[in-house]
């Protein structure tokens, strides 16, 4: 998602820390969404046993791989569109 975090040549120490913080927040947010989505798609809510069964385990593993792949696809697409517009803000309807 480097398009989200373009590097400027000269930034202050506070800005550098804030940027690193924003990146960590982003990864952390992605992780919690992944947990949400993959748990929903893979874990049987009947809870018949306390352990993950084989099917659930395999599903979770593949779900993570697919979630990453989707993230890369979306990121590439947005990056492409951002370049087409050449630096204009307001990708979304704005606010």
């Amino acid at each position, binding site marked *: 998602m480097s398009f989200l975090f373009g590097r400027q040549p000269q930034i202050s120490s506070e800005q550098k820390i804030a940027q690193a913080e924003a990146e960590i927040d982003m990864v952390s947010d992605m992780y919690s969404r992944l947990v949400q989505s993959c748990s929903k798609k*893979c874990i049987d809510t009947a809870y018949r046993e306390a352990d993950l069964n084989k099917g659930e385990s395999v599903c979770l593993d593949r779900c993570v791989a*697919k979630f990453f792949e989707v993230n890369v696809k979306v990121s590439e697409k947005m990056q492409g569109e951002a370049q087409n517009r050449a630096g204009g803000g307001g990708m*979304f*309807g704005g606010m």
Partner: protein
Amino acid sequence: MESLTQSEQRELQNRMEKKQMKEFMNMYSNLVQRCFDDCINGFESKSLTSREEGCIMRCVDKHMKGSQRLGDRFQEQNAAMAQSGGALGR
């Protein structure tokens, strides 16, 4: 909005800029999650099928256009309301 002095407006502006990055990142994550949830439903393999990939691309496109449209309408409504003296954006 209450009438703010110029320096107050500058301070407000500053705070808003910090939030915009956050909001954009949130929009982005929402888009990833929504399209993942809507398009990915089989886990027979760990790679996207071409059908899933096509779905993701169209999903992103459609939701970006949708947000654009919703944003335009939202601003129109909000402006109309502000003029008629009413709620929300003021």
